[in-house]
């Protein structure tokens, strides 16, 4: 509610906020206009050469499907290509922008077309959440949330006066920080089902063609969460132990129990100190997601490698880098905001 009030209260916005808002609105308006006037899929299809149109007709009756029509619409720009497979492949492609259609078989048009196609594929547009950017975001956010929650208990366990709990927590942290995430994921995906006699795929309906990928995602989510918990635990522990001993003594003198002290005094103060290292951990994890290629999931890195394999074009890494930078920038910004909000008392 307070956020809403703040947003409405334009008069009291800071100058920079106003500037940013204006720029965002301007860009948004431009995007909407450009998207609105862009050519439709039908127009793009009609733009194909006669030989390709003839091929499309032949394809309808042919038993071997050799023609693939790719239509990638990114709003402002769209891309269409007609490609045949096999040893004698032919390719025809066009880029649509601001109401006109340009050839994309060579020169700048080709570059633009490739960028649109690659970006579209890495964003995982038109596919479910387990592809591309969506997979990266889903896996990192979920495992970071679960991991951070677990890490609080691990950190408290590690600094606990109970020797057994402390040793167990330390052992957990040591194990997950001391072994590679990839191997942990392999163990969870390959070894664990073998030992306990189930398969990740069988967690979902047999009729679901995506069951394999969903199963792999669950396994990856578990591996990433367990791993994140270990790394976050060290961050949380360091933050908790950085809080002045006097806070502990004052709480005791006031009669607060250990749990009350942790919940209301120590952890709220340490959270602010956790934010910057947690942000680092988060950014690292965004990149670690590329490990899921090993269990059949397609994240940004895997998709760009796949494109590299089929097209041998190293330009594919340009949109990949840009996408990673944008994600990282957005999350760094969000974490910065959270940190600022939590520091109001300082």
């Amino acid at each position, binding site marked *: 509610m307070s956020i809403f009030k703040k947003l409405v209260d334009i008069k009291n916005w800071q100058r920079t906020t106003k500037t940013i808002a204006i720029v965002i609105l301007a860009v948004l308006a431009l995007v909407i206009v450009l998207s609105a006037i862009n050519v439709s899929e039908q127009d793009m299809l009609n733009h194909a050469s006669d030989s390709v149109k003839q091929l499309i007709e032949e394809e309808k009756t042919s038993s071997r499907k050799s023609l693939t029509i790719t239509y990638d619409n990114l709003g402002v720009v769209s891309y269409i290509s007609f490609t045949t497979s096999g040893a004698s492949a032919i390719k025809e492609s066009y880029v649509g922008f601001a109401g006109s259609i340009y050839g994309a078989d060579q020169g700048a048009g080709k570059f633009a077309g490739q960028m649109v196609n690659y970006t579209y594929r890495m964003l995982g547009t038109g596919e479910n959440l387990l592809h591309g950017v969506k997979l990266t975001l889903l896996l990192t956010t979920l495992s970071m949330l679960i991991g951070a929650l677990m890490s609080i208990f691990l950190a408290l366990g590690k600094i606990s006066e109970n020797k057994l709990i402390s040793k167990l927590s330390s052992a957990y942290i040591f194990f997950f920080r001391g072994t590679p995430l990839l191997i942990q994921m392999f163990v969870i995906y390959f070894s664990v089902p073998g030992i306990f006699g189930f398969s990740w795929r069988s967690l979902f309906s047999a009729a679901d063609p995506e069951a394999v990928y969903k199963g792999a995602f669950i396994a990856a989510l578990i591996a990433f969460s367990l791993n994140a918990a270990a790394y976050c635990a060290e961050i949380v522990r360091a933050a908790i132990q950085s809080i002045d001993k006097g*806070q502990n*003594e004052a709480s*005791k*003198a*006031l*009669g607060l129990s250990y749990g*009350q002290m942790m919940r209301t005094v120590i952890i709220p103060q340490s959270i602010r100190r956790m934010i910057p290292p947690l942000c680092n951990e988060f950014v690292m994890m965004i990149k670690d997601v590329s490990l899921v290629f090993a269990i059949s999931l397609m994240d940004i890195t895997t998709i760009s490698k796949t494109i590299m394999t089929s097209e041998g074009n190293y330009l594919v890494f340009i949109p990949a880098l840009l996408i990673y930078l944008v994600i990282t920038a957005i999350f760094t910004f969000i974490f910065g905001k959270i940190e600022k909000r939590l520091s109001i*008392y300082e």
Partner: protein
Amino acid sequence: MSEYQHILSTEHLYKSFGPLEVLKDINLAVKKGEVICIIGPSGAGKSTYLRSLNQLEKITSGKIFIKDELFLHREHNRTIHRVEPDAQKAMLLEMGMVFQRFNLFPHKTVLENVMLAQVLVRKKSKDAAEKLAKEIIERVGLSDKLDVYPSKLSGGQQQRVAIARALAMEPEIMLFDEPTSALDPELVGEVLNVMKGLAKQGMTMLCVTHEMGFAREVADRVVFMADGMILEEGTPKELFDHPTNEKAISFLRSIL
């Protein structure tokens, strides 16, 4: 008078940090309403004694009585007797503590600092806690700072909030551990005034302090500690004007 003789007393209290013995055979009995100032050179064990009373330090040996009831008895680092946990908690709440470095909760406002333990420990309703908190904050003269975070307050103001926070638990004894030592000289007075006010209202107080003027004016009894022992005690007049112990004489000479 009250149903007990001493509100707080210790017998043969010893405390060591490893091989270092910081408290040696401390015997002290406090009557209700009494104001006792503990003075002495640094390293004398004054703070450790105060912190031992409310269990921030574990004593090595000795007995602690609260309202004549044996609260804790330890010999050679082994607990011989201690009261039930619930009773222990209740007895500890009879003591309020004010620290040298204030130790306010920096992420809570002044009002929240004073309300927190009332709600969590005394299980009061928010309204009741707020009402009492506002009263006490007014008593320490900070009614205009209710919603301010501690970092925005001066040292003297912070210490007054810390006193209010301790008072809000309605203790019978207040322990002050060098409450003015971390303050700039011009801020000492406002804190001492609050403490004087408390003394006047009859609060039992145990103050470790370097403020001799305060001790002379307010204390019923002054205790001189050095090397972990109580070397001399008496009324302010006796101790300040006619000290007999040699260490006390040289200490008083050095600071007066």
